[in-house]
Protein backbone atom coordinates (compact mmCIF):
# COMPACT_ATOMS: atom_id res chain seq x y z
CA UNK A 1 0.00 0.00 0.00
CA UNK A 2 2.27 2.81 -1.13
CA UNK A 3 -0.25 5.07 -2.84
CA UNK A 4 -3.84 5.30 -3.96
CA UNK A 5 -4.63 4.34 -7.53
CA UNK A 6 -7.89 5.20 -9.27
CA UNK A 7 -9.39 1.76 -8.73
CA UNK A 8 -8.65 1.76 -4.98
CA UNK A 9 -9.93 5.31 -4.67
CA UNK A 10 -13.19 4.39 -6.37
CA UNK A 11 -13.63 1.37 -4.06
CA UNK A 12 -12.97 3.51 -0.97
CA UNK A 13 -15.37 6.24 -2.00
CA UNK A 14 -18.01 3.58 -2.61
CA UNK A 15 -17.33 2.14 0.86
CA UNK A 16 -17.52 5.61 2.44
CA UNK A 17 -20.55 6.63 0.37
CA UNK A 18 -18.84 9.81 -0.77
CA UNK A 19 -18.63 11.48 -4.18
CA UNK A 20 -15.58 13.42 -5.31
CA UNK A 21 -14.88 15.64 -8.28
CA UNK A 22 -11.78 14.82 -10.31
CA UNK A 23 -9.73 17.62 -8.73
CA UNK A 24 -10.85 16.61 -5.22
CA UNK A 25 -9.91 13.02 -6.01
CA UNK A 26 -6.46 14.00 -7.22
CA UNK A 27 -5.76 16.10 -4.11
CA UNK A 28 -7.13 13.55 -1.64
CA UNK A 29 -5.37 10.61 -3.31
CA UNK A 30 -2.06 12.46 -2.84
CA UNK A 31 -2.83 13.23 0.80
CA UNK A 32 -3.84 9.64 1.51
CA UNK A 33 -0.63 8.42 -0.08
CA UNK A 34 1.34 10.68 2.28
CA UNK A 35 -0.60 9.52 5.34
CA UNK A 36 -0.15 5.89 4.38
CA UNK A 37 3.61 6.47 4.43
CA UNK A 38 3.26 7.40 8.15
CA UNK A 39 1.12 4.35 8.80
CA UNK A 40 3.44 1.98 6.94
CA UNK A 41 5.99 2.61 9.68
CA UNK A 42 4.03 0.26 11.88
CA UNK A 43 5.17 -2.64 9.70
CA UNK A 44 8.58 -2.35 11.36
CA UNK A 45 7.05 -2.93 14.78
CA UNK A 46 8.02 -6.35 16.10
CA UNK A 47 5.38 -7.39 18.59
CA UNK A 48 7.40 -10.37 19.82
CA UNK A 49 10.58 -8.38 20.48
CA UNK A 50 10.01 -8.05 24.25
CA UNK A 51 8.38 -11.43 24.77
CA UNK A 52 4.92 -10.23 23.80
CA UNK A 53 2.56 -12.74 22.24
CA UNK A 54 1.83 -12.43 18.55
CA UNK A 55 -1.88 -12.80 17.91
CA UNK A 56 -2.70 -15.15 15.09
CA UNK A 57 -5.40 -13.72 12.87
CA UNK A 58 -7.56 -16.45 11.40
CA UNK A 59 -7.60 -16.32 7.64
CA UNK A 60 -11.05 -15.34 6.45
CA UNK A 61 -12.13 -16.27 2.96
CA UNK A 62 -12.91 -13.31 0.68
Amino acid at each position, binding site marked *: MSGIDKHTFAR*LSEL*SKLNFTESEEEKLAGE*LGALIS*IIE*KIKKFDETADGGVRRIIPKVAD
Partner: protein
Amino acid sequence: MDVIKLTLKQLRAALDKRLIGAGELTREYLNRAKTLNPELNAFISVTEEEALANAETAQKIINSGESRALTGIPAAIKDNICTDGIKTTCGSKMLENFTPSRDAEVVKLLKEQGYALIGKTNLDEFAMGKSNETSAFGAVRNPIAPERVPGGSSGGSAAAVASSCCAFALGTDTGASIRQPASFCGITGLKPTYGRISRTGITEFSKSFDVVGPLAKRAEDCGVVVDALLGGSRGSCSAKIGKGVSGLTVATPKELFSDDVNGEIREAVLNAAKALEKNGVKLTEVSIPSLSYVVAAFLIISCAEAVSALSRFDGEEYGLRGSGGARDERIRDSRTRGFGDEVKRRLMLGGIMLSDGGVYFQKALAVKRRLIREFNGVFEKADAIVSPTFPRTAFKIGEKIDLMKNYSSSMYTAFANITGLPCVSVPCGKDKDGLPIGMSITGREFDEARILQIADFLERETGVWDCPPSAAETLLK
Protein backbone atom coordinates in the same frame (compact mmCIF):
# COMPACT_ATOMS: atom_id res chain seq x y z
CA MET B 1 -15.77 41.90 43.25
CA ASP B 2 -14.12 40.84 40.00
CA VAL B 3 -15.87 37.49 39.71
CA ILE B 4 -14.09 36.37 36.56
CA LYS B 5 -10.83 36.14 38.50
CA LEU B 6 -12.24 33.78 41.11
CA THR B 7 -11.64 30.03 41.22
CA LEU B 8 -14.62 27.68 41.35
CA LYS B 9 -14.22 27.24 45.11
CA GLN B 10 -14.10 31.01 45.58
CA LEU B 11 -17.21 31.41 43.42
CA ARG B 12 -18.93 28.72 45.51
CA ALA B 13 -18.11 30.64 48.68
CA ALA B 14 -19.27 33.96 47.15
CA LEU B 15 -22.59 32.42 46.07
CA ASP B 16 -23.20 30.64 49.37
CA LYS B 17 -22.38 33.76 51.41
CA ARG B 18 -24.79 35.75 49.16
CA LEU B 19 -21.98 38.10 48.09
CA ILE B 20 -23.35 37.60 44.60
CA GLY B 21 -26.55 36.02 43.27
CA ALA B 22 -26.58 33.16 40.75
CA GLY B 23 -28.51 35.36 38.30
CA GLU B 24 -26.02 38.22 38.61
CA LEU B 25 -23.06 35.87 38.16
CA THR B 26 -24.64 34.21 35.13
CA ARG B 27 -25.45 37.57 33.54
CA GLU B 28 -21.83 38.69 34.04
CA TYR B 29 -20.52 35.70 32.04
CA LEU B 30 -23.42 35.80 29.59
CA ASN B 31 -22.73 39.45 28.74
CA ARG B 32 -19.10 38.67 28.08
CA ALA B 33 -20.09 35.71 25.88
CA LYS B 34 -22.60 37.80 23.90
CA THR B 35 -20.14 40.65 23.43
CA LEU B 36 -17.05 38.60 22.65
CA ASN B 37 -18.58 35.84 20.56
CA PRO B 38 -18.96 37.87 17.36
CA GLU B 39 -15.17 38.36 17.52
CA LEU B 40 -14.05 34.98 18.86
CA ASN B 41 -16.69 32.62 17.40
CA ALA B 42 -16.15 30.42 20.45
CA PHE B 43 -19.85 29.51 20.72
CA ILE B 44 -22.08 27.93 18.11
CA SER B 45 -25.05 28.83 20.32
CA VAL B 46 -25.22 31.16 23.30
CA THR B 47 -28.10 29.82 25.39
CA GLU B 48 -29.29 32.95 27.20
CA GLU B 49 -32.78 31.74 28.14
CA GLU B 50 -31.48 28.39 29.38
CA ALA B 51 -28.70 30.09 31.38
CA LEU B 52 -31.05 32.50 33.15
CA ALA B 53 -33.59 29.75 33.88
CA ASN B 54 -30.76 27.55 35.24
CA ALA B 55 -29.56 30.46 37.41
CA GLU B 56 -33.04 30.96 38.86
CA THR B 57 -33.24 27.28 39.80
CA ALA B 58 -29.71 27.44 41.23
CA GLN B 59 -30.59 30.41 43.43
CA LYS B 60 -33.48 28.45 44.92
CA ILE B 61 -31.11 25.58 45.71
CA ILE B 62 -28.61 28.00 47.28
CA ASN B 63 -31.37 29.66 49.32
CA SER B 64 -32.43 26.27 50.65
CA GLY B 65 -28.86 25.63 51.83
CA GLU B 66 -28.55 22.56 49.60
CA SER B 67 -25.92 23.89 47.17
CA ARG B 68 -23.31 21.59 45.67
CA ALA B 69 -19.91 22.34 44.13
CA LEU B 70 -21.26 23.62 40.79
CA THR B 71 -24.62 25.08 41.82
CA GLY B 72 -25.02 28.42 40.04
CA ILE B 73 -21.67 28.13 38.24
CA PRO B 74 -21.81 29.25 34.57
CA ALA B 75 -20.32 26.73 32.17
CA ALA B 76 -20.03 25.96 28.46
CA ILE B 77 -20.41 22.58 26.77
CA LYS B 78 -18.66 21.42 23.61
CA ASP B 79 -21.17 21.03 20.81
CA ASN B 80 -20.62 17.30 20.34
CA ILE B 81 -22.12 16.62 23.79
CA CYS B 82 -25.90 16.11 23.61
CA THR B 83 -28.13 18.62 25.36
CA ASP B 84 -31.86 17.95 25.56
CA GLY B 85 -33.78 20.47 23.44
CA ILE B 86 -30.65 22.43 22.49
CA LYS B 87 -29.00 22.08 19.09
CA THR B 88 -25.93 19.83 19.03
CA THR B 89 -24.17 20.27 15.70
CA CYS B 90 -20.75 18.61 16.17
CA GLY B 91 -19.44 21.58 14.15
CA SER B 92 -20.83 19.89 11.04
CA LYS B 93 -23.22 20.86 8.29
CA MET B 94 -24.45 17.27 8.62
CA LEU B 95 -26.00 18.03 12.04
CA GLU B 96 -26.70 21.73 11.53
CA ASN B 97 -30.34 21.26 12.57
CA PHE B 98 -30.04 18.35 15.00
CA THR B 99 -31.67 18.82 18.39
CA PRO B 100 -31.24 15.86 20.76
CA SER B 101 -34.15 14.65 22.86
CA ARG B 102 -31.88 13.55 25.71
CA ASP B 103 -28.99 14.92 27.75
CA ALA B 104 -25.60 13.27 27.78
CA GLU B 105 -24.84 11.65 31.14
CA VAL B 106 -22.30 14.41 31.98
CA VAL B 107 -24.93 17.07 31.28
CA LYS B 108 -27.41 15.26 33.53
CA LEU B 109 -24.81 15.30 36.29
CA LEU B 110 -24.16 19.02 35.81
CA LYS B 111 -27.91 19.68 35.86
CA GLU B 112 -28.22 17.74 39.11
CA GLN B 113 -25.55 20.06 40.49
CA GLY B 114 -27.57 23.10 39.32
CA TYR B 115 -25.03 24.61 36.86
CA ALA B 116 -25.93 27.34 34.36
CA LEU B 117 -25.41 26.61 30.66
CA ILE B 118 -23.95 29.67 28.91
CA GLY B 119 -23.70 28.01 25.51
CA LYS B 120 -22.50 25.25 23.22
CA THR B 121 -18.96 25.72 22.02
CA ASN B 122 -17.46 25.53 18.56
CA LEU B 123 -15.21 22.62 17.61
CA ASP B 124 -13.43 21.00 14.70
CA GLU B 125 -16.01 19.03 12.72
CA PHE B 126 -16.84 15.82 14.62
CA ALA B 127 -13.85 16.61 16.88
CA MET B 128 -11.40 15.91 14.05
CA GLY B 129 -8.69 18.55 13.93
CA LYS B 130 -6.15 20.53 15.87
CA SER B 131 -7.00 24.11 14.94
CA ASN B 132 -10.79 24.52 15.07
CA GLU B 133 -10.59 25.58 11.43
CA THR B 134 -12.48 22.50 10.18
CA SER B 135 -15.75 23.60 11.83
CA ALA B 136 -18.63 24.19 9.41
CA PHE B 137 -19.41 27.22 11.59
CA GLY B 138 -16.11 28.98 10.96
CA ALA B 139 -12.76 29.19 12.71
CA VAL B 140 -12.47 30.21 16.37
CA ARG B 141 -10.04 32.99 17.29
CA ASN B 142 -7.59 32.62 20.15
CA PRO B 143 -8.36 35.23 22.87
CA ILE B 144 -4.64 35.60 23.60
CA ALA B 145 -3.84 36.46 19.97
CA PRO B 146 -7.00 36.77 17.84
CA GLU B 147 -5.16 36.24 14.54
CA ARG B 148 -4.21 32.76 15.75
CA VAL B 149 -6.06 29.48 16.23
CA PRO B 150 -7.13 28.32 19.71
CA GLY B 151 -6.15 24.73 18.91
CA GLY B 152 -8.61 21.90 18.57
CA SER B 153 -10.78 20.17 18.57
CA SER B 154 -12.18 21.74 21.78
CA GLY B 155 -11.00 25.17 20.59
CA GLY B 156 -14.31 26.88 21.36
CA SER B 157 -14.30 25.54 24.92
CA ALA B 158 -10.69 26.70 25.44
CA ALA B 159 -11.37 30.16 23.96
CA ALA B 160 -14.54 30.53 26.07
CA VAL B 161 -12.65 29.75 29.28
CA ALA B 162 -9.58 31.84 28.40
CA SER B 163 -11.75 34.88 27.63
CA SER B 164 -13.80 34.34 30.81
CA CYS B 165 -17.06 33.76 28.96
CA CYS B 166 -17.69 30.88 31.37
CA ALA B 167 -16.15 29.62 34.61
CA PHE B 168 -15.29 26.25 33.08
CA ALA B 169 -16.10 24.23 29.99
CA LEU B 170 -16.43 20.61 29.01
CA GLY B 171 -14.51 19.23 26.07
CA THR B 172 -13.76 15.84 24.60
CA ASP B 173 -10.33 14.39 23.90
CA THR B 174 -9.66 11.65 21.35
CA GLY B 175 -6.05 12.44 20.47
CA ALA B 176 -5.27 15.90 21.90
CA SER B 177 -8.55 17.77 21.84
CA ILE B 178 -8.66 19.05 25.42
CA ARG B 179 -4.95 19.41 26.12
CA GLN B 180 -3.67 21.04 22.94
CA PRO B 181 -6.28 23.86 22.92
CA ALA B 182 -5.73 24.35 26.65
CA SER B 183 -2.03 24.74 25.88
CA PHE B 184 -2.65 27.20 22.99
CA CYS B 185 -5.00 29.35 25.10
CA GLY B 186 -2.96 29.37 28.31
CA ILE B 187 -5.43 27.46 30.47
CA THR B 188 -5.56 24.02 32.09
CA GLY B 189 -7.22 21.00 30.48
CA LEU B 190 -7.60 17.51 31.88
CA LYS B 191 -8.04 14.30 29.90
CA PRO B 192 -9.24 11.85 32.55
CA THR B 193 -8.47 8.12 32.51
CA TYR B 194 -10.31 6.37 29.69
CA GLY B 195 -13.69 5.19 30.95
CA ARG B 196 -13.64 7.14 34.20
CA ILE B 197 -16.25 9.67 33.04
CA SER B 198 -19.39 8.52 31.22
CA ARG B 199 -19.37 8.88 27.42
CA THR B 200 -23.10 8.27 27.08
CA GLY B 201 -24.57 10.98 24.88
CA ILE B 202 -21.25 12.07 23.40
CA THR B 203 -21.10 11.95 19.61
CA GLU B 204 -18.62 9.20 18.98
CA PHE B 205 -15.44 9.66 16.95
CA SER B 206 -13.26 6.77 18.15
CA LYS B 207 -14.74 4.60 20.87
CA SER B 208 -11.36 3.30 22.07
CA PHE B 209 -10.07 6.80 22.77
CA ASP B 210 -12.92 9.31 23.33
CA VAL B 211 -13.10 10.85 26.82
CA VAL B 212 -14.89 13.86 28.32
CA GLY B 213 -12.99 16.27 30.51
CA PRO B 214 -12.85 19.83 31.85
CA LEU B 215 -11.06 22.96 30.66
CA ALA B 216 -10.64 25.64 33.32
CA LYS B 217 -8.32 28.38 34.50
CA ARG B 218 -6.79 26.25 37.22
CA ALA B 219 -5.94 22.62 37.92
CA GLU B 220 -7.91 22.99 41.14
CA ASP B 221 -11.01 23.92 39.10
CA CYS B 222 -10.52 20.88 36.85
CA GLY B 223 -10.50 18.71 39.98
CA VAL B 224 -13.78 20.26 41.21
CA VAL B 225 -15.47 19.60 37.85
CA VAL B 226 -14.25 16.01 37.51
CA ASP B 227 -15.31 15.25 41.08
CA ALA B 228 -18.81 16.51 40.19
CA LEU B 229 -18.82 14.31 37.06
CA LEU B 230 -17.84 11.28 39.14
CA GLY B 231 -21.09 11.70 41.01
CA GLY B 232 -19.46 11.76 44.43
CA SER B 233 -19.16 8.00 44.82
CA ARG B 234 -16.12 7.08 42.77
CA GLY B 235 -13.22 8.74 44.57
CA SER B 236 -11.94 12.31 44.46
CA CYS B 237 -9.55 13.86 41.97
CA SER B 238 -8.99 16.91 44.19
CA ALA B 239 -7.80 15.03 47.26
CA LYS B 240 -4.14 16.02 46.82
CA ILE B 241 -4.62 19.64 45.68
CA GLY B 242 -2.55 22.04 47.78
CA LYS B 243 -0.20 19.35 49.06
CA GLY B 244 3.53 19.68 48.52
CA VAL B 245 5.38 17.73 45.87
CA SER B 246 8.51 16.89 47.85
CA GLY B 247 9.47 13.23 47.66
CA LEU B 248 7.77 12.57 44.32
CA THR B 249 9.62 11.24 41.28
CA VAL B 250 8.88 12.70 37.86
CA ALA B 251 10.10 11.16 34.60
CA THR B 252 11.05 12.97 31.37
CA PRO B 253 10.86 10.66 28.33
CA LYS B 254 13.69 11.61 25.96
CA GLU B 255 11.54 10.80 22.89
CA LEU B 256 9.19 13.69 23.81
CA PHE B 257 12.01 16.25 24.07
CA SER B 258 13.45 15.67 20.59
CA ASP B 259 14.60 18.36 18.15
CA ASP B 260 11.10 18.40 16.63
CA VAL B 261 10.01 20.40 19.67
CA ASN B 262 10.48 24.17 19.40
CA GLY B 263 13.48 25.23 21.52
CA GLU B 264 11.56 27.77 23.61
CA ILE B 265 8.95 25.13 24.45
CA ARG B 266 11.55 22.55 25.40
CA GLU B 267 13.27 25.10 27.63
CA ALA B 268 10.04 26.22 29.32
CA VAL B 269 8.99 22.64 30.09
CA LEU B 270 12.45 21.72 31.40
CA ASN B 271 12.46 24.89 33.53
CA ALA B 272 9.12 23.87 35.02
CA ALA B 273 10.58 20.42 35.72
CA LYS B 274 13.53 22.12 37.42
CA ALA B 275 11.10 24.17 39.54
CA LEU B 276 9.70 20.85 40.73
CA GLU B 277 13.22 19.57 41.41
CA LYS B 278 13.98 22.64 43.54
CA ASN B 279 10.99 21.69 45.65
CA GLY B 280 12.11 18.19 46.42
CA VAL B 281 11.02 16.25 43.31
CA LYS B 282 13.43 13.72 41.89
CA LEU B 283 13.75 14.01 38.10
CA THR B 284 14.68 11.00 36.04
CA GLU B 285 15.17 10.71 32.28
CA VAL B 286 13.54 7.63 30.76
CA SER B 287 13.06 6.08 27.35
CA ILE B 288 9.74 4.82 25.98
CA PRO B 289 10.83 3.34 22.63
CA SER B 290 7.37 2.50 21.27
CA LEU B 291 6.38 6.18 21.28
CA SER B 292 7.72 6.22 17.72
CA TYR B 293 4.71 4.08 16.67
CA VAL B 294 2.09 6.25 18.40
CA VAL B 295 1.11 8.30 15.34
CA ALA B 296 0.62 5.25 13.11
CA ALA B 297 -1.31 3.32 15.77
CA PHE B 298 -3.46 6.35 16.54
CA LEU B 299 -4.34 6.97 12.89
CA ILE B 300 -5.13 3.31 12.24
CA ILE B 301 -7.40 2.80 15.24
CA SER B 302 -9.10 6.21 15.28
CA CYS B 303 -9.80 6.38 11.53
CA ALA B 304 -11.05 2.79 11.36
CA GLU B 305 -13.37 3.46 14.31
CA ALA B 306 -14.52 6.76 12.79
CA VAL B 307 -15.78 4.85 9.75
CA SER B 308 -18.07 2.86 12.01
CA ALA B 309 -19.03 5.80 14.25
CA LEU B 310 -19.99 8.08 11.37
CA SER B 311 -21.77 5.42 9.32
CA ARG B 312 -25.03 6.35 11.07
CA PHE B 313 -24.96 9.79 9.44
CA ASP B 314 -26.65 9.08 6.14
CA GLY B 315 -29.44 11.65 6.08
CA GLU B 316 -32.07 8.92 6.43
CA GLU B 317 -32.28 8.82 10.22
CA TYR B 318 -29.70 11.42 11.23
CA GLY B 319 -28.32 14.42 9.47
CA LEU B 320 -28.62 16.46 6.33
CA ARG B 321 -31.23 14.95 4.04
CA GLY B 322 -29.74 14.06 0.68
CA SER B 323 -31.47 14.58 -2.62
CA GLY B 324 -32.02 11.94 -5.29
CA GLY B 325 -34.50 9.19 -5.99
CA ALA B 326 -32.64 6.03 -5.05
CA ARG B 327 -31.64 5.44 -1.41
CA ASP B 328 -27.96 5.00 -2.24
CA GLU B 329 -27.96 8.20 -4.27
CA ARG B 330 -29.56 10.12 -1.38
CA ILE B 331 -27.05 8.76 1.15
CA ARG B 332 -24.07 9.68 -1.04
CA ASP B 333 -25.47 13.17 -1.55
CA SER B 334 -26.10 13.59 2.19
CA ARG B 335 -22.57 12.54 3.16
CA THR B 336 -20.86 14.38 0.31
CA ARG B 337 -22.56 17.68 1.19
CA GLY B 338 -22.75 17.09 4.94
CA PHE B 339 -19.12 16.25 5.73
CA GLY B 340 -16.15 18.57 5.37
CA ASP B 341 -12.70 17.77 3.91
CA GLU B 342 -11.04 16.64 7.17
CA VAL B 343 -13.81 14.18 8.00
CA LYS B 344 -13.80 12.81 4.44
CA ARG B 345 -10.02 12.36 4.57
CA ARG B 346 -10.23 10.36 7.79
CA LEU B 347 -13.16 8.26 6.56
CA MET B 348 -11.23 7.36 3.41
CA LEU B 349 -8.12 6.56 5.44
CA GLY B 350 -10.23 4.46 7.81
CA GLY B 351 -11.61 2.63 4.79
CA ILE B 352 -8.08 1.68 3.79
CA MET B 353 -7.35 0.44 7.31
CA LEU B 354 -10.45 -1.75 7.22
CA SER B 355 -9.70 -3.17 3.78
CA ASP B 356 -6.55 -5.11 4.56
CA GLY B 357 -8.04 -7.99 6.55
CA GLY B 358 -7.27 -6.36 9.89
CA VAL B 359 -3.48 -6.68 9.64
CA TYR B 360 -2.81 -2.98 10.32
CA PHE B 361 -5.43 -2.84 13.04
CA GLN B 362 -3.93 -5.85 14.83
CA LYS B 363 -0.48 -4.28 14.60
CA ALA B 364 -1.87 -1.08 16.11
CA LEU B 365 -3.43 -3.04 18.98
CA ALA B 366 -0.06 -4.73 19.56
CA VAL B 367 1.55 -1.26 19.78
CA LYS B 368 -1.12 -0.31 22.30
CA ARG B 369 -0.33 -3.34 24.47
CA ARG B 370 3.41 -2.64 24.28
CA LEU B 371 2.95 1.06 25.11
CA ILE B 372 0.87 0.17 28.17
CA ARG B 373 3.66 -2.17 29.32
CA GLU B 374 6.34 0.49 28.74
CA PHE B 375 4.39 3.19 30.57
CA ASN B 376 3.65 0.81 33.45
CA GLY B 377 7.40 0.17 33.61
CA VAL B 378 8.05 3.90 33.98
CA PHE B 379 5.37 4.19 36.66
CA GLU B 380 7.11 1.51 38.73
CA LYS B 381 9.78 4.11 39.49
CA ALA B 382 8.03 7.44 38.83
CA ASP B 383 4.83 9.10 40.03
CA ALA B 384 4.26 11.13 36.88
CA ILE B 385 5.70 11.91 33.45
CA VAL B 386 6.18 15.47 32.16
CA SER B 387 6.52 16.49 28.51
CA PRO B 388 5.64 19.34 26.14
CA THR B 389 1.91 19.33 25.34
CA PHE B 390 2.59 20.33 21.75
CA PRO B 391 5.81 20.93 19.79
CA ARG B 392 4.82 24.49 18.84
CA THR B 393 2.67 27.35 20.07
CA ALA B 394 -0.56 28.60 18.44
CA PHE B 395 -0.22 29.13 14.70
CA LYS B 396 -1.96 31.72 12.54
CA ILE B 397 -5.48 31.14 11.22
CA GLY B 398 -5.16 29.97 7.62
CA GLU B 399 -1.45 29.24 7.97
CA LYS B 400 -0.46 26.41 5.67
CA ILE B 401 0.60 23.55 7.91
CA ASP B 402 2.34 20.59 6.33
CA LEU B 403 -0.08 17.64 6.44
CA MET B 404 2.57 15.17 7.58
CA LYS B 405 3.82 17.48 10.35
CA ASN B 406 0.26 18.17 11.44
CA TYR B 407 -0.59 14.49 11.83
CA SER B 408 2.85 13.57 13.22
CA SER B 409 2.46 16.03 16.09
CA SER B 410 -0.10 13.59 17.57
CA MET B 411 2.82 11.74 19.14
CA TYR B 412 2.99 14.33 21.95
CA THR B 413 -0.62 13.82 23.02
CA ALA B 414 -2.12 10.64 21.54
CA PHE B 415 0.02 8.32 23.68
CA ALA B 416 -2.29 9.16 26.59
CA ASN B 417 -5.34 8.16 24.52
CA ILE B 418 -3.76 4.92 23.31
CA THR B 419 -2.74 3.92 26.83
CA GLY B 420 -5.88 5.40 28.42
CA LEU B 421 -3.78 7.26 31.01
CA PRO B 422 -4.88 10.55 32.61
CA CYS B 423 -3.02 13.62 31.38
CA VAL B 424 -3.32 17.31 32.21
CA SER B 425 -1.93 20.26 30.25
CA VAL B 426 -0.90 23.19 32.41
CA PRO B 427 0.58 26.56 31.36
CA CYS B 428 4.32 26.70 32.05
CA GLY B 429 5.54 29.80 30.22
CA LYS B 430 5.29 31.93 27.11
CA ASP B 431 7.31 32.15 23.91
CA LYS B 432 8.96 35.33 22.58
CA ASP B 433 5.63 36.38 21.00
CA GLY B 434 3.83 36.06 24.33
CA LEU B 435 2.03 32.89 23.28
CA PRO B 436 1.31 30.33 26.01
CA ILE B 437 3.32 27.13 26.33
CA GLY B 438 1.74 24.03 27.84
CA MET B 439 3.30 21.22 29.78
CA SER B 440 1.69 17.79 29.99
CA ILE B 441 1.68 15.78 33.18
CA THR B 442 0.70 12.13 32.72
CA GLY B 443 -0.14 9.86 35.61
CA ARG B 444 -0.98 6.28 36.46
CA GLU B 445 -4.42 4.95 35.53
CA PHE B 446 -7.10 6.57 37.74
CA ASP B 447 -4.48 8.75 39.45
CA GLU B 448 -5.86 12.13 38.35
CA ALA B 449 -5.36 13.31 41.93
CA ARG B 450 -1.57 13.07 41.60
CA ILE B 451 -1.26 14.91 38.29
CA LEU B 452 -3.62 17.65 39.45
CA GLN B 453 -1.54 17.98 42.63
CA ILE B 454 1.60 18.57 40.53
CA ALA B 455 -0.23 20.86 38.06
CA ASP B 456 -1.69 22.92 40.90
CA PHE B 457 1.74 23.22 42.52
CA LEU B 458 3.25 24.46 39.25
CA GLU B 459 0.48 27.00 38.70
CA ARG B 460 1.09 28.44 42.15
CA GLU B 461 4.86 28.27 41.67
CA THR B 462 5.08 29.72 38.15
CA GLY B 463 1.90 31.85 38.15
CA VAL B 464 1.86 32.32 34.38
CA TRP B 465 -1.88 32.67 33.87
CA ASP B 466 -2.76 36.31 33.30
CA CYS B 467 -6.45 36.68 33.93
CA PRO B 468 -8.18 37.75 31.78
CA PRO B 469 -6.16 37.70 28.53
CA SER B 470 -5.41 41.25 27.44
CA ALA B 471 -6.48 40.66 23.83
CA ALA B 472 -9.95 39.59 24.92
CA GLU B 473 -10.23 42.72 27.06
CA THR B 474 -9.34 44.87 24.04
CA LEU B 475 -12.08 43.18 22.04
CA LEU B 476 -14.52 43.85 24.87
CA LYS B 477 -13.89 47.61 24.65
